[in-house]
């Protein structure tokens, strides 16, 4: 009797949850479906949900008529580049704060977080002018630098919370055994630190891929990553829903899939380790 009620309840929860989840996901699904329609079918009233003539012409056209590949490459270089350079700076910093904390560590960490609270518009003008003078405006190098700096606090925090969990006894035990600092790092700590470093890298690639303040303000046509490429669809001519959908699908697919794989790390990284 009670089991039957439990079962009914479970089905009810399932139904409601799936309904809401599909509603939330719907814009993405709709974009995906529209990308396979002709332009005429894309704006048809009533909307055509599944029964239309599926076509891949939008993808071939986006591929042929725009520089999609170049913008995609820009996105990869900027997102991965800024994350890797960021790691080079953040790993030593997080390491030293996790393993040799001082009185000031807490203050330094909070100060770093506070730099992230600085609104980007507060420094937009000088960065723009400095970059113009240094020839960094509209270059991928410039964006790698800016995104690395703007995500550095998150990287340090995230790595710090991971490193903090490496038991220090292990470190001390290794020292007692007479391991040198180099060996200590290579054989004992690296394997323990690697998952945290990988998660940090992953989360920052996602953040940098979608970053749309600096990427829109500091680039023009040729070096723009996908965020800027998609923004160029905001002043279109003629029918373009299907092509917009195809371009959008191509732009978000890789990162949405990465996102699915990194839900746990995302929670931890973006809450600075406060929620796990």
């Amino acid at each position: 009797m009670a089991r039957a009620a439990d079962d009914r309840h479970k089905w009810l929860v399932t139904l409601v949850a799936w309904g809401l989840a599909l509603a939330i996901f719907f814009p993405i699904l709709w974009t995906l479906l529209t990308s396979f329609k002709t332009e005429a079918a894309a704006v048809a009233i009533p909307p055509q949900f599944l029964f239309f003539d599926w076509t891949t012409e939008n993808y071939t056209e986006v591929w042929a008529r725009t520089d999609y590949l170049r913008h995609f490459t820009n996105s990869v270089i900027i997102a991965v580049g800024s994350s890797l350079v960021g790691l080079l700076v953040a790993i030593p910093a997080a390491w030293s704060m996790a393993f040799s904390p001082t009185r000031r560590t807490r203050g330094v960490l909070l100060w770093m977080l506070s730099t992230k609270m600085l609104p980007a518009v507060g420094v937009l003008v000088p960065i723009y002018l400095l970059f113009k003078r240094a020839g960094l405006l509209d270059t991928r190098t410039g964006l790698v630098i800016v995104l690395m700096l703007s995500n550095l606090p998150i990287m340090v925090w995230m790595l710090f919370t991971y490193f903090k969990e490496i038991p220090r006894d292990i470190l001390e035990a290794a020292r007692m055994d007479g391991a040198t600092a180099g060996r200590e790092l290579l054989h004992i700590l690296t394997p323990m630190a690697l998952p945290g470093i990988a998660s940090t890298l992953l989360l920052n690639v996602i953040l940098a891929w979608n970053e749309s303040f600096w990427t829109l303000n500091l680039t023009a046509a040729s070096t723009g990553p996908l965020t800027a490429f998609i923004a160029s669809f905001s002043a279109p001519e003629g029918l373009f829903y299907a092509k917009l959908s195809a371009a959008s699908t191509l732009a978000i697919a890789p990162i949405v899939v990465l996102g699915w794989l990194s839900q746990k790390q995302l929670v931890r990284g973006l809450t600075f380790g406060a929620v796990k």
Partner: protein
Amino acid sequence: MASTHNGATARLMLSPAVALLLLWMAVPLAMTLWYSLHDYQLLMPRGHEFLGLENYVYFLTDPAFFESLVNTFALLLGVLAITVLGGIGLAMLLDRPMYGQGIVRVLVVSPFFVMPTVSALVWKNMFMNPVNGLFAWLAQVFGMRAIDWLAEVPLLSLTLIVAWGWLPFATLILLTALQSLDTEQKEAAEMDGANAFDRFVHITLPHLARPIAVVILIQTIFLLSLFAEILVTTNGGPGNQSTNLAYLVYSQALLRFDVGSASAGGVVAVVFANILAIFLMRLVGKNLER
């Protein structure tokens, strides 16, 4: 001996990050301050006359400033309300046993990974367009007038677009927090005859207080700099109805080439962010470290 050596190494390892962040903060901020006190037009490169606070007076007395300030906070509060309340509800739902929980979770979190320019353009064209949008079709089906969302209610439309992207974030954080709630505690309360409402108020909500604070902090950081969504949908219009502080500074600087007044606006934005930051960091700061 060993410990001083360690201390020096530790400082050496920490210094590049600190130095870079200092540079990233201090140099541009100092420049913004300097510009804000001078007559600096991008199109007239010579003769940066000292103006004192004139740029500030100009920026702060511009009716667009007050409007943009109101819009900034309206967007912030609107999105926070939708995402936090919706997130609590969704998280509690997803925490229950169901079939296909993994897939449901994947569907719900997906919008968070959609870049702002894509989500804004998809909503603008395929949903909110008064002729071809799905909402217009729905209105027609129900015999109502089709609304030109971004022209008639630009701020509400932007709130919905942005909230769609952040609802998954709040849900994911709160769900993770709920899953760490002790089920024994919940069951004990149930045995004691506490009803669902009591359990929610006395057990679930206190447990969620900290994650909710974190969600508010993180979202505030990102929402104060909301920009791309406005740029590709309304350009701040009609009039200044959807212009926020970030967009106003951008348009002063890069559309009207008035570096001086844009910088004054930048300083104002920093001041507001700092007031909020102090408030929020105090709220969250002591919880961040165990």
